[in-house]
């Protein structure tokens, strides 16, 4: 099985007045067809920038400065803008936190969906409409035949996100990039959307990168998880293993910070300090200043270690190896 997406040494920097912001600074990721990857991190960790970089959606002053981006073996960095556009609409779909990034407020849903279909495929308007109605039904919108005539503002936030998802899936994409798609939604609605997405991904066999700050959400949907910190992936591996027995101290700290992991009423196991500025990362391991296991060796850039079970950790002394000693 060849990889669907290969990201190697991706660096995306922003050239600001204050200096060079290394938002993404050496990310490697291999995604297999049909794989659902959770990309987790706190604000400023670079998770969204990394996903936008794959699609070439970085605006100045940001720029992908280094790295390889291979989609089905095709180099996306050297692809023409036309080719990228073609890929974006058809094979690689994007779902944003704010569905209005996808939807135009002044056009009917029908118009937008039919246009999207016909932008990449030569089909009749009628066929395009039928496919759109069908897709709306599949994302859980009842009475799609009539509701397709509505404008975006006539829908609730949850419904709008469903429409945005439906548009993203119109061409049966091979890869879906979902950037915090449920963060703005209520718990019960989030549950619905996650359920629909699980179903759809399973049906279509699409691979997906699900970017989120919420480990609990990612855990419910992802096969594999990558954890980002300071512009780099510090740990990745099968979801159950990463959550169950984290290899990187940051992952461990993150999990321990979640209230439900601790006995109610007791102090939480907080990570001390705050996330470093990507403008001015400490040399060596970016997490070292907050790490309770940190020692002298952490002052040099940590290696990426294979810790078994298909897991990698960017740490000089991953927790599992420590335990093994």
């Amino acid at each position, binding site marked *: 099985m060849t990889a669907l997406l290969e990201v190697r040494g991706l660096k995306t920097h922003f050239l600001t007045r204050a200096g060079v912001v290394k938002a993404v600074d050496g990310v490697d990721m291999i995604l297999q067809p049909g794989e659902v990857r959770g990309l987790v991190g706190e604000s400023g960790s670079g998770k969204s920038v990394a996903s936008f970089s794959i699609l070439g959606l970085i605006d100045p002053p940001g720029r992908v400065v280094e790295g390889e981006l291979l989609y089905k073996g095709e180099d996306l960095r050297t692809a023409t803008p036309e080719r990228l556009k073609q890929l974006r609409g058809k094979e690689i779909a994007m779902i944003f936190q704010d569905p209005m990034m996808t939807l135009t407020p002044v056009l009917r849903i029908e118009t937008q969906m039919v246009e999207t279909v016909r932008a990449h495929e030569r089909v009749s308007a009628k066929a395009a409409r039928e496919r759109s109605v069908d897709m709306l039904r599949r994302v859980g919108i009842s009475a799609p035949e009539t509701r397709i005539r509505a404008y975006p503002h006539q829908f609730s936030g949850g419904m709008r996100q469903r429409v945005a998802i439906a548009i993203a899936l119109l061409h049966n994409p091979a890869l879906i990039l979902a950037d915090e798609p449920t963060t703005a939604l209520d718990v019960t609605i989030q549950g619905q959307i996650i359920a629909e997405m699980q179903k759809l991904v399973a049906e279509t066999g699409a691979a997906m990168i699900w970017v989120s700050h919420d480990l*609990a959400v990612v855990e419910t949907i992802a096969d594999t998880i990558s954890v980002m910190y300071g512009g780099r992936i510090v740990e990745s591996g099968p979801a159950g293993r990463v959550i169950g027995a984290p290899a990187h101290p940051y992952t461990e700290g993150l999990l321990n910070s979640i209230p*439900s992991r601790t006995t109610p009423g007791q102090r939480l*196991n907080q990570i001390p300090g705050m996330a470093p500025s990507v403008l001015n990362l400490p040399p060596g391991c970016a997490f070292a200043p907050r790490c309770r296991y940190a020692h002298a060796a952490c002052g040099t850039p940590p290696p990426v270690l294979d810790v078994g079970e298909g897991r990698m950790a960017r740490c000089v002394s991953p927790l599992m190896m420590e335990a093994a000693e």
Partner: protein
Amino acid sequence: MTAHVTLENVEKVFQKKPDFAERLAIRLGAAPPPAVRAVDDVTLEIAQGEAVGLVGESGCGKSTLGRIVAGIYGKTGGTFAFEGKEEAHWSAEDARRARLDIQMIFQDPMSSLNPRKRVLDIIGEAPVVHGLIPRREQPARVEALMREVGLDPAYARRFPHQFSGGQRQRIGIARALAVEPKFLVCDESVAALDVSIQAQVLNLFMDLREKRGLTYLFISHDLGVIEHLTDRVAIMYLGRLVEVGTTAEIFRDANHPYTQALLEEAPRIGRGRRAYTPLKGEIPSPLNPPPGCHFHTRCPHAMTICKTERPRLKAVAPGRLSACHLNDTTD
């Protein structure tokens, strides 16, 4: 424990500004002026030293209720009592005291701080204005407060935008503490923070409760936070309380179908990958809530009576209230 704050049949109706077509309809008598009953007949007691959680989804009125308690909004019906004294009987001094004793911690750590004021002024303004301390003691007081919430007092002359989200939230907490409150209303106060920072702030809340004997009304959609922090919890749906009880009991055995659904669907770490059986349907518009039990449109157990008759919030066990017709049949 004496009741610290008592809400009885509290109601808050917002008149929505009608658009042109609606104005026309109102003029012609075809439609009533649009109104949102954000808080609908809520009765709740919070005892001294207690931490009560208020849980619900967007538009359920939990933030409005919190603002009524904090004195930011007036209510349109019902009674409010603080330390046993009803609002209607407050003297000017009582009102001032109640207002200062109940402080609010907000959600957005950026917009809740005045961007054009220095931290020193943000924290130190109210105690000086209210004469709690003389102006010359302001710097010392601010320094003490900053230390208490875990901020470096050396940054007192900086502006809010020069701080991270977690630090800003600490500034907001210090501002509230500056008037020596007894009661904090925390409205989604950690929701905008990253997990690692959220843990720090939650720890601060717990420390302050212990040190200062504070009472909390903790408003959140995050059940993990509520379970961790509160003694009792009240669940709201479309302006009404649907269930009230101790946190431990509710998380163990929710009575109301909505509470059950919430607990079921909240993503919780460590459950692993799982298939959802989500609650059906959308949250109805608060402008036009369904009759009877507001929840009946989405309730898997809905019965005929649920569509017409509003279920009363009544005791289903000692200290446990629920508003569901399912409990009627068990009588």
